[in-house]
């Protein structure tokens, strides 16, 4: 029998606020253990939580960008569990009245993955297990999170990956999180069940906790699909369980079964008042949403006439988009700007992280100046590439590398003279060209480039050569 995969994701995203959700300690990553702590985030008796306004603002932005309804009257709840990563023995989260509900993420195929809810909550501390002890660092305890819960609308590991990538990009565009999976500021729990193809019921599901890489999510889902399919095919029953993925073996293993399921005994958090959000605040947040990734991709393709490939290479990185747009706003052409960014500049960046940061030794204005020289034909592509390469290595301004003489290029009389010389010096190439070998003409271009050290306009030279021949 063939089985179809049914999956939903719970995605935790750490919010990029300056302070924790319920106290004024910094959220800075790292730091010596327990140096970003106070009586509130270490759960001292009598200490009272005070909600950070920006957490609510960021969560509303995230909700609106994911097409959610915002609950303007909302409250927090206690989720009880006893584990040393929570000093209070409960986590302050949201249960029956999440801040956002009923949204969706649209995939490239047009399929919509439903968002059940987005709620705000506090992160737990970090545990290090060594010798006979567990060492606890509460620096991360109280860092604000949103948990984005999807509907079980995901039907393949590829869709799961696309969904997570889209979420990540949207959150980055909104500047509510850096979503660095490798640093844990974005992590997913993946729920998986199987059912016979075409069936309309849901099978018993397993949940793989704390996935922190796109490729592990895909691999874990593939493994779990095979494991469950094998059980079902042999007439067995999948046991509802919470699992972990072992990235070394590529297998999932059971953490706890249904019998050990947590009973969180949620109840309303008595230390925090109900939050009343005026409708105008929601409208203000809606109006302030930036252009979102899919809209940007469409605009780059349709309005700026970039190829799908180039547009995708740009829109994946928010910092690159900002640089590119600042450049074209200064009057540089989209096409030349995009080509130089995705060509010469990207070749200097080995990792995705470097592209995300997009740190350059010159600003967009300098880059725009170079592109405009190219756009106007005052310099040719070869000189533009050479100059950009020097700017990437040494920084500085365009004028440090291109003189007024260079910008003048080679005048028409001089260029024609050079073309005649090139023809005379390359009789074989000329004969080949005349015999129909179009490419043979490149030997003549090479002659002119060498003679002018790249300053000549090859398009102009091409016209002259063809006229002379």
């Amino acid at each position, binding site marked *: 029998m063939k089985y179809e995969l049914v999956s939903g994701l719970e995605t935790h995203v750490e919010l990029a606020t300056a302070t924790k959700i319920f106290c004024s300690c910094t959220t800075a990553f790292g730091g010596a253990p327990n*140096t970003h702590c106070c009586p509130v985030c270490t759960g001292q008796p009598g200490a009272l939580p005070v909600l950070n306004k920006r957490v609510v603002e960021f969560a509303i932005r995230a909700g609106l960008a994911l097409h959610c309804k915002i609950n303007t009257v909302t409250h927090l709840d206690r989720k009880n569990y*006893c584990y040393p990563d929570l000093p209070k023995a409960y986590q302050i989260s949201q249960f029956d009245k999440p801040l956002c509900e009923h949204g969706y993420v649209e995939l490239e195929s047009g399929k919509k993955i439903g968002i059940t809810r987005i709620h705000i909550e506090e992160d737990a501390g970090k545990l290090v297990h060594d010798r*006979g002890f567990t060492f606890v660092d509460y620096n991360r305890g109280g860092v604000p999170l949103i948990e984005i819960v999807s509907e079980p609308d995901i039907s393949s590991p590829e869709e799961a990956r696309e969904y997570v990538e889209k979420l990540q990009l949207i959150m980055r565009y909104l500047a509510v999180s850096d979503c660095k999976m490798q640093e844990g500021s974005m992590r997913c729990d993946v729920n998986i069940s199987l059912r016979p193809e075409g069936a309309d019921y849901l099978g018993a599901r397993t949940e793989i906790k704390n996935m922190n890489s796109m490729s592990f999510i895909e691999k874990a889902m593939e493994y779990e699909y095979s494991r469950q399919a094998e059980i079902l095919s042999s007439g067995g029953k999948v046991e509802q369980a919470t699992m972990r993925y072992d990235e070394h073996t590529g297998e999932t293993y059971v953490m706890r079964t249904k019998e050990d399921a947590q009973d969180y005994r949620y109840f309303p958090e008595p230390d925090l008042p109900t939050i009343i959000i005026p409708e105008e605040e929601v409208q203000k947040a809606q109006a302030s949403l930036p252009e979102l990734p899919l809209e940007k991709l469409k605009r780059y393709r349709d309005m700026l006439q970039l190829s799908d490939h180039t547009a995708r290479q740009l829109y994946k990185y928010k910092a690159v988009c900002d640089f590119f747009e600042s450049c074209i706003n200064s009057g540089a052409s989209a096409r030349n700007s995009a080509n130089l960014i995705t060509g010469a500049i990207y070749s200097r960046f080995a990792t995705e992280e470097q592209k995300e940061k997009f740190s350059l030794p010159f600003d967009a204005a300098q880059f725009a100046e170079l592109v405009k020289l190219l756009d106007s034909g005052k310099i040719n592509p070869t000189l533009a590439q050479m100059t950009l390469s020097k700017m990437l290595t040494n920084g500085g301004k365009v004028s440090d590398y291109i003189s007024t003489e260079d910008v003048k290029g080679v005048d028409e009389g001089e260029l024609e003279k050079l073309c005649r010389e090139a023809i005379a010096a390359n009789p074989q190439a000329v004969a080949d060209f005349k015999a129909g070998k179009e490419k043979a003409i490149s030997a003549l271009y090479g002659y002119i480039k060498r003679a002018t050290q790249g300053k000549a306009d090859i398009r102009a030279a091409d016209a002259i050569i063809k006229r002379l021949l």
Partner: protein
Amino acid sequence: MSISVDEIKWLAKLSKLDFDDERAAAFSGDFDEIVEFADRINSQIAGDTTKIREVGGSEIAFADLRKDEVKESLPVEKVTSNVVSEGGYFTVRRVVK
């Protein structure tokens, strides 16, 4: 409503407490009294738990929430002054095998 010995044992497990049968039976009686008291409170608020919040009368306007401004944290020595600690970490018995 009465709380069974099994329910007491389940709650004890969640609370990481170790109860023998005798102790669990004693707690069962105590819990009955507690639940009865809670029922009396519930009857006063007509079963609508959202009213628990109204009893406290606590609401906060969005504009009055805390500003996102960092204040100094406590020195680590103070944070760990009442606990077993090593290298600035809180140290507890190992929780994973």
